[in-house]
């Protein structure tokens, strides 16, 4: 409680300053401090029964003459997947598990130019931007060496891209020059329905001379609501009741349809 009391005025000041900055930014555009900004629209995505994906747009202001990279990721995690291989030189089947450590479930990168052209490999690795740096970042086990790691990581990318969870694009960000030596950027992305509920981090990097010069962050939250949320919660936390209800519903549906057909099809 004590801690909270101390922090509270600070927080208010921060909010006030942010608000003041916001107001100043628009009223005294020319004199505002040059700073990279980022704001996600539709940053709270609600999953209800009729959800079939959404769109997320990110916009902000950056210094003119900088390239921009926008990265959207879910928190890093541990993923276990099955690998297929040839058995006896003829038959394809699952031949074991592959573990991917420090791999996000969702990873998409958008940029104003080809990543290799606007960023040095060191900078890409430092900020984990792009598939090749993600490969260096992620641990794959069990593999015998770098070559096998690359091969399985590429398969992993194919698997993720097939379900729209990983994406890479260098022509979706649009920029408009402003008359104060700044530029406004904007991107509209399709948000795949396969992305699971949780918090997603949007990081915008301003890039100059192959180096990241500035970065700004914003968040996108995906959440189940209403009946979708209660059903998912019950399935997870109350398996006995959920199982019993599922069976009962199926039994009564089967029996109900049987009765309807008896009335309808009197001939038999």
């Amino acid at each position, binding site marked *: 409680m004590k801690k909270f009391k101390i922090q509270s005025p600070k927080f208010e000041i921060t909010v006030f300053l942010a608000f003041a900055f916001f107001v100043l930014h628009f009223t005294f555009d020319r004199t505002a401090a040059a700073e990279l900004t980022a704001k996600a629209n539709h940053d709270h995505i609600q999953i209800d029964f009729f959800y079939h994906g959404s769109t997320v747009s990110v916009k902000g202001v950056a210094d003119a003459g900088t390239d921009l990279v926008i990265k959207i990721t879910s928190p890093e995690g541990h993923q*276990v997947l099955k690998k297929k291989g040839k058995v006896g030189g003829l038959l394809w*089947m699952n031949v074991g598990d592959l573990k991917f450590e420090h791999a996000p479930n969702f990873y998409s990168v958008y940029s104003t130019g080809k990543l290799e052209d606007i960023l040095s490999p060191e900078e890409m690795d430092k900020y984990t931007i792009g598939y090749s740096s993600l490969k260096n970042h992620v641990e794959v086990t069990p593999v015998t060496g770098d070559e096998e790691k690359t091969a399985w990581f590429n398969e992993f990318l194919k698997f993720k891209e097939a379900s729209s969870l990983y994406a890479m694009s260098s022509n979706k960000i649009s920029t408009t020059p402003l008359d104060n030596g700044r530029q406004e950027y904007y991107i509209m992305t399709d948000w795949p329905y396969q992305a699971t509920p949780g918090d997603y981090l949007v990081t915008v990097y301003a890039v100059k001379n192959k180096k990241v010069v500035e970065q700004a962050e914003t968040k996108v939250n995906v959440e189940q609501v209403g009946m*979708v*949320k209660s059903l*998912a919660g019950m*399935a997870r936390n109350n398996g006995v009741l959920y199982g019993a209800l599922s069976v009962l519903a*199926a039994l009564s549906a*089967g029996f109900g*349809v049987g009765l309807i057909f008896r009335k309808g099809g009197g001939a*038999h």
Partner: protein
Amino acid sequence: MYLYLPVALTSINILIPVGLGLAVGLLSGLFGVGGGFLMTPLLIMFGIPSTVAAATDSNQIVAASTSGTYAHWKVGNVDFKMGLYLLLGGFLGGLVGVQGIKVLKAMGNADFVIKMTYVLMLGIVGSYMLVESIMSMKKKPSVAESKQQKESGMAKFLKSLPLQTHFEKSGVTHSALVPVILGGFVGILAAIMGVGGGFLMVPVMVYILRMPMHVVVGTSLFQILFTCIEVTFLQAYTNHSVDFILAVLLLLGSTIGAQVGAVFGRKLKGEQLKILLALIVLVVTIKIIFELTLSPSLLISQAGGH
């Protein structure tokens, strides 16, 4: 129209599960199989995670087989006594089969053994049924003769067993041990292969228990109903993998399909039913053989399920 599935965590066009349910329910009412060997891979193809696909399918089969059992029971085609003996055996066999999988996994390459068992079983059962039904349709007059010849060895052995009892609905007399042991055998295989086993149980009832085809269909559905209630509950309890919404969409189609199938079935002769089922089983076998030999587009898949 799309609906979001809260456990599968994906969105699906509702026409897909309703249509799949209708088609598989029809097969269920016609042949007395659960249809898991068709439904589960189709659901996976439409983006449902494999564990959720298998568990939700069993929930759906509860509805389809209730509907189908009811339809067949109305016209007196369910042998409850035989069904209960087979169930008892199936339950015991399932317990043994689950241990069998543990042994296979410990030995390594369990997937290979499971897939091979599955392909061989489907292939043998499908071919045998096809050849046998075509032969018996061709030689209508001599059917009784050949049956008596075939029966002599097997029938003598079956008659020598203790606990002989008469199954009124099916019009056969067997030792109570026979359905229990056969049910157990199917239960072991079904547990190892991770399927319901209807496609094995139907031929067992037709060829070894010598039950009339129409009673076989009804009795098989009755038996499948109980197996799937157990599986659905266990999957919901231990794996949290039953998607209620997906199950409802599937059963909208399958309960109606099962009724239509049962009506259709009454218009077909036993031999015709056997030929159709044999063809479907063979098509599935060929499909699995292709899957095993052609290079897959993705070499990585979600863990869980087969």
